[in-house]
């Protein structure tokens, strides 16, 4: 029997009667065969697993391995700077850190703590993450820009694989605007592209999460300012640590934008507005360059540069002063008496009056059975005195005689009732009322009495400060209205509007505006010694006189439009003070300050130039010997 080894060990406890049964190790041969087949089955089961992964579709997994291994982080391209005409920086960038969430390993339940840690609004964050749900997973979301040291500390202590590995920081560029809101309206601000914008064809080239210009120059010249983001491709380990840099595609910074703005004038304009609601526009009437453009109240665009906080947005939008409105291009108000030079021009050009045509002012005048008031009793008034004293009765007469069609025609010629075409978004067009306009808009017939109101810039007539500066400037240069623009290098796409005015007529109107400032007229406060300043005041009702009497908070708007020098204009300035009431006369000094700043600077530069030549005798000699081409 084959049980030798057990026999050697007598202590074993197997009962002898079962020895035969227990002796045969082959009793389970079939079962062992079953085990062998089971093993075959197990190995086939496992091998087919490898077959499936490694032979059938290894590309899927290779691709996923590559995505594990290779991380692409955007290098945010800085936007171009915005400069003034002398190359001084108005809008700059500075480096900050931004937090991005990698969506490949994002866990929604982490968002609450992440939002808390970074002081973000959880609902905002959740919405944002949900917005991205349709986009490819490898596109990260920027959730906070301009990380504070506290934020950075939070990120660094929580971005380990066990906590919130989805958090990553990248260096980015943040817009730095003048904090006091200087030029804020013209510059505008940037923001993340919105869902609504993404649906528009002109935004099709942008990606979700991209920062684009939202208003102002930032929007207008977004394509110039926007750089091309770069990318850093590197090999990372499971903790996101960079092991090897595979390649860097550097960011291409956006181009700088040199504007026509002169910061020296801009600052004066902003300061002169003080606390008043209103606007100042300074143009070069010879070419349409905008030298200054101020609107008050203003806002701090830096609050928009990062994703704006809900509370800030609410504060800004609910402000009754409406600080986001660019009053220079968007405030539409009756021009009041500043309209009178245009009425005078219409009368002269259409031949309905000449400089000697007399209208009588008896503290007003009666037309169509209704008495229209003037502020004073001026008696017999001709053109020059009519403008200088801003006699309403005189202009009632001119307007009545010239007729609404001629008034509207010349108002359109000077650019009223249509957008000036300035390179800023959302410009307002204003209104030039006429029978045709009235029929079109309200299906009502024109009453001749309306013409009387239009003659002094009231009625439905509305203009923007920008239109006013352009209109008066265009008259002053003899009938050329350039398209205002803020981009210095811009060759205006539109040709300037030209309408050959009779130079004699222009001179008569200009003489009147000279008198306004220099002959004891209504704009005497704009006078500058040794400089020919022309101007025209305006006090425009915003409601009926009776309404204004009972509502003390509703007051007249004050206008002043001025330019200099009178017969070879270099700068035209329009000033609007909303709700100024009796303080209306202050609009004139504001215009004066800007004009003075312009000529002071010019004198300073000339002086500096001369001093430079004195220090450099050779240059002085050269400039003395070689006649200047311009002269």
């Amino acid at each position: 029997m084959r049980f030798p080894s057990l026999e050697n060990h007598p202590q074993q406890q197997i009962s002898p009667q079962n020895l035969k049964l227990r002796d045969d190790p082959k009793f389970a041969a079939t079962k062992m065969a079953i085990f062998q087949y089971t093993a075959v089955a197990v190995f086939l089961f496992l091998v087919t697993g490898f077959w499936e992964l490694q032979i059938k579709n290894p590309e899927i997994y290779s691709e996923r391995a590559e995505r594990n291994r290779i991380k692409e982080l955007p290098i945010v391209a800085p936007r171009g700077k915005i400069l003034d005409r002398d190359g001084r920086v108005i809008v700059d960038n500075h480096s900050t850190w931004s937090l991005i969430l990698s969506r490949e390993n994002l866990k929604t339940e982490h968002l609450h703590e992440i939002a808390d840690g970074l002081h973000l609004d959880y609902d905002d964050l959740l919405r944002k993450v949900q917005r991205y749900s349709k986009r490819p997973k490898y596109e990260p979301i920027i959730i906070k820009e301009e990380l504070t040291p506290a934020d950075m500390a939070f990120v660094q202590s929580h971005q380990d694989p066990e906590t919130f590995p989805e958090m990553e920081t990248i260096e980015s560029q943040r817009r730095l605007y003048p904090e006091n809101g200087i030029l804020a309206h013209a510059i505008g601000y940037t923001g993340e592209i919105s869902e609504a914008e993404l649906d528009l064809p002109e935004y099709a080239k942008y990606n979700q999460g991209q920062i684009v210009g939202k208003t102002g120059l930032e929007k207008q010249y977004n394509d110039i300012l926007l750089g091309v983001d770069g990318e850093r491709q590197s090999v990372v380990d499971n903790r996101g640590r960079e092991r090897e840099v595979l390649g860097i595609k550097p960011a291409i910074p956006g181009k700088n934008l040199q504007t026509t703005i002169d910061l020296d004038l801009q600052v004066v304009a902003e300061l002169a507005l003080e606390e008043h609601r209103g606007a100042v526009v300074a143009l070069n009437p010879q070419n349409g360059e905008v030298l200054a453009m101020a609107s008050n109240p203003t806002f701090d665009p830096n609050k928009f540069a990062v994703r704006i906080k809900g509370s800030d947005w609410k504060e800004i939008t609910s402000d009754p002063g409406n600080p986001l409105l660019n009053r220079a291009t968007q405030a539409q108000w009756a021009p009041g008496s500043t309209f009178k030079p245009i009425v005078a021009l219409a009368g002269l050009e259409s031949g309905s009056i000449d400089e000697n045509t007399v209208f009588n002012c008896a503290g007003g005048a009666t037309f169509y059975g209704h008495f229209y008031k003037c502020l004073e009793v001026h008696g017999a008034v001709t053109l020059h005195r009519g403008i200088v004293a801003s006699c309403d009765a005189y202009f009632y007469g001119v307007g009545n005689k010239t007729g609404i069609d001629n008034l509207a025609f010349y108002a359109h010629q000077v650019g009223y009732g249509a957008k000036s075409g300035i390179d800023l978004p959302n410009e307002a067009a204003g209104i030039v009322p006429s029978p045709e306009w009235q029929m079109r808009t309200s299906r009502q017939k024109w009453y001749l009495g309306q013409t009387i109101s239009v003659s002094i810039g009231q009625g439905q007539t509305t203009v923007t400060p920008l239109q006013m500066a352009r209109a008066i400037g265009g008259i002053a240069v003899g009938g050329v209205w350039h398209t205002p623009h803020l981009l210095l290098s811009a060759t205006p796409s539109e040709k300037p509007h030209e309408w050959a005015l009779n130079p004699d007529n222009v001179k008569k109107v200009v003489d009147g505006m000279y008198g306004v400032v220099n002959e004891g007229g209504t704009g005497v406060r704009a006078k500058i010694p040794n400089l020919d300043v022309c101007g025209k005041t305006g006090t425009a009702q915003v409601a009926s006189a009776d309404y204004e009497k009972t509502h003390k908070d509703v007051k007249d708007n004050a206008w002043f439009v001025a330019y200099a020098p009178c017969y070879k204009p270099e700068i035209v300035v329009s000033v609007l003070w909303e709700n100024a009431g009796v303080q209306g006369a202050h609009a004139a000094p504001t215009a004066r300050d800007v004009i003075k700043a312009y000529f002071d600077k010019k004198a300073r530069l000339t002086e500096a130039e001369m001093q430079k030549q004195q220090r450099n005798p050779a240059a002085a000699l050269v400039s003395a010997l070689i006649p200047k081409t311009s002269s």
Partner: protein
Amino acid sequence: MQAGMKDFDWTMFFVTMIICGLGVLQIFSATHDTIWQGSWWKQLMFIVAGVALMWVVANIDYHALIRRVYPLYIASVVLLVAVLVIGKRAFGSTRWIALPAGIHLQISEFAKIAVILLVARLLTELSTEVLQLRDLLKLGGIILIPMALIAKEPDLGTALTYIPVLLIGIFLAGMPWKYWAAIGLVLVVVVPIAYASLHDYQRARIVSFLDPERDPQGTGYQLIQSKIAVGAGGTWGKGVTKGSQTQLRFLPVPHTDFIFSAFAEEHGFIGVMLVMVLYFVLLMQIVQNAQTAPDRAGMYVCMGVGALLLFHILVNVGMVVGRMPVTGIPLPLMSYGGSSIWSTFLMLGLVNSVRVRRFVN
């Protein structure tokens, strides 16, 4: 007695050595630039010591061991209790006993041997043709005690490796079909209860096994990363130290539990086939030794070892290809770790102890 070591199973030995060698190479590749970079050398030492252990055990008559199996079993249970009391805690569970010289022994790996021997003994001592309920309960009891202690560590994966030892035993011994039906019934009742009493992480592992993409960063992570590593290996593999999943550590523990995943990434389907064939040859050698065993005790020992190894391979490699849940049990002979290497060599020593005595008489 000396049973002629020329009968030593050299085929099995060479197959074992090749598998171990590939394991060392993979450990080197997976750890060469990490804090574990000396592991391949330590593993080599473990293997050398393991081979020595195997030799020693092969020279001991397995009957002598079976005779002393009760003290062995009791010692194992006491040590398992000791693990829970004084054991070293790491990665959230207490599995090791620290010995001097910085050696940490995972007792659950060694207790298997006592259980295999005890099952062999009890089945050999049967007084009837087939298993009786009494025998079944007895066998169940001796398995359940170490299993419960190991599950308490908690180390459910290793605890489960005891089940195939029992199953193969009762399968070979023969059991009335109604007992099988009863076991099935008990499982139907016990599984939901057991599931309810699992630790959260254990439950999460099962859930993530069923649907790994549901929580790709959490417990499904390991399974997904392992599948990515295997798939990325393709036919020919990426080469030693070239697998990105392994080298950049997207693959968790690429030198221990997931070593075969790392191997599959760097050596591809070809390498996988080679190792699978080697394991298969190893298993078939063990079964052959069972078939030629001089007695039932030897047959039970060999088959217990075979079933245990098959189960390890199924669960570990199955996990690597995403066909089994993550359990954290090592791949015998390849995974880094002294306890696993030594217990495997001890078991192979038992198989050889049976083999060299097949022609005695």
